[in-house]
């Protein structure tokens, strides 16, 4: 909203606002799991929402805030925008693709996938996890034995400093003192 522009973003504790054009995820009800756009606010408890229907399957309806969860995404539409206008705004901002790329959407998708696995797929998943764990443990044993030195993750602070494990190694070799 307007206030967001006056106060610098870094100091704002809230970033997702209920506003016209805010994209929200419906959590409860027959449309749960679908995205919708807030196009008008009724009162302190409910808002008018539209899919748009052709993109998300959510029809124009009044929905209480308790049933929706706000996302980071927003489109610029006037109050009570028509479906045509909404659709254009969604496509211009490429909201569908942006949503699919968020970690939130990916987690929801993973949950759905996990629930829909068949018995055979569950078995294959179990085998894959065991193989991955085996590989990880092999490397871990090597690190513990000192035969493998893990490369540090490149961060801005560590870039200049000496890599930590290299410093640890001579310390470990000389560790016979204690």
């Amino acid at each position: 909203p307007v206030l967001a522009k006056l106060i610098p973003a870094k100091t704002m504790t809230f970033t997702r606002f209920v506003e016209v054009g805010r994209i929200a995820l419906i959590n409860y009800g027959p449309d749960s799991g679908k995205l919708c756009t807030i196009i008008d606010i009724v009162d302190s408890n409910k808002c008018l929402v539209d899919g748009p229907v052709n993109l998300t399957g959510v029809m124009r309806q009044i929905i209480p805030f308790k049933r929706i969860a706000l996302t980071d995404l927003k489109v610029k539409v006037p109050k009570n925008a028509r479906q045509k206008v909404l659709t254009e705004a969604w496509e211009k901002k490429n909201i569908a693709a942006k949503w699919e790329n968020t970690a939130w959407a990916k987690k929801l998708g993973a949950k759905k996938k996990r629930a829909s696995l068949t018995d055979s797929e569950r078995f294959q998943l179990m085998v894959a996890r065991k193989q991955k764990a085996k590989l990880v443990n092999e490397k871990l044993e090597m690190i513990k034995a000192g035969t493998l030195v893990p490369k540090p993750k490149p961060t801005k602070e560590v870039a200049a400093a000496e890599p930590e494990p290299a410093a640890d190694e001579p310390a470990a070799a000389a560790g016979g003192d204690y």
Partner: protein
Amino acid sequence: PHPSHASQSPIEPSAGKRMVVEKRAKGEARASRFYPAYDVKPKAKSALVAKPPKLRSSLTPGTVLIMLAGRFRGKRVVMLKVLESGLLLVTGPFEVNGVPLRRVNAAYVIGTSTKIDVSGVELPETVCDAYFKRPKEEKKKKTADEFFAGDDEHEGPSDERKADQAKVDAALMTKIDEVPMLKAYLGALFTLTKGMKPHEMKF
């Protein structure tokens, strides 16, 4: 005329013939002295014919099943066909998980969505319900010595069974080896772990 003499014809002066009532065989019921109070229709033989057994749609030949009860509970097994009695004919295959050619009740089985093409697997003609039916043992009264002697040792499967098993499994294994990880899948047991809700799971 008296009903017990019903089989006797009225005494006629026919040339030399005389009707005699057949002597009742030992153990046969005596003929009743009375006619039934109302006319009794002779019971007609039932015209009902047993239909081929109908199963839920997930159970088709070649489906991998999960056994839920009995000696092989938890085993994943290949269904071969439906027998006339309505029981399913399954096999491990034996070398994969130790389940032989066996009958199993469809109620104690989960049909998974994994299917194997068993069109090429030929079942011996002799394999049917009678093949598996346990032969009735004579009940003998044991003497005191026999009672304490203990039961006879179980003989293993007959040679016929072993031969049939080998034949069916050989054909089935070629199909199983074609699919990656299927052999390992059939060899593994099905278990429920924490958080698994069978009514919410897909098989």
